[in-house]
């Protein structure tokens, strides 16, 4: 199976321009016989939208732009990010999985960072669930940025049967040392390594690049195999088109040698959670 990551810099608030970027990359990927192409978080809109959120939102069932994109997914699958108006006046930070000529799944970001430089809860509603859904490549789960930094998100996808975890992101870099790249990039890799190793899934992380209001999106997209090994990585802060062959058989291979998935006990976790949550007090 061939995977491609489009580490792009969308233009803030310009759907038409960003649609063109998507079309260009989809064509490029098709030429290279890519099976699955990943775009970053809010790839169709840009990230720092603030009050533009409600002006740029799309309604997946009727929107012509999304229909046009869906039409391009007959011989390639791809993931793109957009602002979804799920119900009237309810705006969500969403990721769509395009495959076989339609949107086959939408994940709505659950963990909306609202601290320090982030203010997503001011502008977005929260998603409500993590789903592992069927794709031509096996069960897959999608996460958006800060979702991925909560290990329970990947755990739920793993327990739900996911073999591939796709995390799309618009993560600004922060903190520097004498290392090349931002210090924060390590945090994403650490999670990618951990999740892929212990949940024995492919982890595909696609971040964006470019500046918005001084925020510098760090890039550093990557792919980990189900054994926790880094198999491909994009550069820091530069635009990139990363194409990599992966072997889905590796899932079976790693799960045979260490049966974490077989031995997982979600019902015990569930009962323990119920007891813990029941004891919550203010």
């Amino acid at each position: 199976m061939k995977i491609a990551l489009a580490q792009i810099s969308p233009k803030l608030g310009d759907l038409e321009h960003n649609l063109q970027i998507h079309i260009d990359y989809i064509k490029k990927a098709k030429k290279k016989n890519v099976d699955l192409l990943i775009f970053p978080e809010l790839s169709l809109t840009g990230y720092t939208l603030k009050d533009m959120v409600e002006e740029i939102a799309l309604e997946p069932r009727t929107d012509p732009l999304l229909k046009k994109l869906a039409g391009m997914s007959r011989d390639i699958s791809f993931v793109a990010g957009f602002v979804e108006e799920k119900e009237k006046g309810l705006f969500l930070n969403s990721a769509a999985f395009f495959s076989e000529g339609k949107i086959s799944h939408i994940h709505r970001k659950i963990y909306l960072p609202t601290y320090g430089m982030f203010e997503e809860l001011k502008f977005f509603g929260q998603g409500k669930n993590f789903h592992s859904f069927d794709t031509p490549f096996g069960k897959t789960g999608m996460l958006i940025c800060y979702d991925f930094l909560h290990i329970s998100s990947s755990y739920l996808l793993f327990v739900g049967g996911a073999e591939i975890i796709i995390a799309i992101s618009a993560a600004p870099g922060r903190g520097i040392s004498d290392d090349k790249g931002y210090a924060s990039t390590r945090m994403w890799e650490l999670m990618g390594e951990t999740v892929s190793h212990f949940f024995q899934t492919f982890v595909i992380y696609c971040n964006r690049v470019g500046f918005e209001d001084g925020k510098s999106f760090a890039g550093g997209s990557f792919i980990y195999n189900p054994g926790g090994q880094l198999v491909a990585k994009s550069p820091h802060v530069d635009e990139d088109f990363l194409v990599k062959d992966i072997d889905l058989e590796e899932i079976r291979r790693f799960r045979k040698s260490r049966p974490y998935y077989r031995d997982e006990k979600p019902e015990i976790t569930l009962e323990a959670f119920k007891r813990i949550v029941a004891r919550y007090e203010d």
Partner: protein
Amino acid sequence: MKINPGFVEKLLTRFIKEELSKFDFKKGILGLSGGLDSAVCACLAARALGPQNVIALILPYKETFGRDAQDAKEMAQGLGLQTRIIDISPMIDTYFTLHPMKSRILKGNKMARERMSILYDFSAREKALILGTSNKTELLLGYGTIHGDMACAINPLGDLYKTQVRQLARHMMVPDKIIKKKPTAGLWAGQSDESELGLSYTRIDKVLYQHVDLKKSKKEILSEGFPDKDVEKILGLIKGSEFKRHLPPIPKISARTVGHDFLYPYDRDK
């Protein structure tokens, strides 16, 4: 768009008083042009601080704005403000003799920044806080000179549309000739905001109110019968002037960055 001018007056005089006391200032200073906005601001300041604590700088360029300067002077005297008149012609003329420039907009901007520079100097000399006079219409359209007339310490009129400032002016007994005067940015003699913008403030404010306060989309505004050309122009001006409403962007490098995630209130430690 109607305001209760009595309430707004009370609110803004309290604001001016409280802001100055927080920052340990007794006096306020502002540039008085002879136009509506600075006249209203001067009235509010006089009521908030007492006229003896308000310094009005009248900063004309040559004789071009003779009548406006005269109106400003009368206005300041009527209110009992401390008044100084400083002719900015020598500074402006020296500069443009050395670096000639035909564009009257650029000349006007330079004048606006000369006035700003004098205001800041006198602010320090007199220990007086600078009161801005930009209204909401100007801020949204970007109809002001960045680091010129837009520069100030506090901006009392920043959330009132031009037509609302006019309502407040009537309530505050600003002389009729100032209220009825054609609005001008004073960038050159005979300039009129409304002919330069190609729209009256009444029309502009109606569209701004629909778009900004009521959050209506372009489509919705058009469906209410506002002309396409006007709406297009107004929304374009808003979008094109975003930079005037922000501090300059700082590229984020470290773990904590001014403006990004080093966040304290303006009123910190006051």
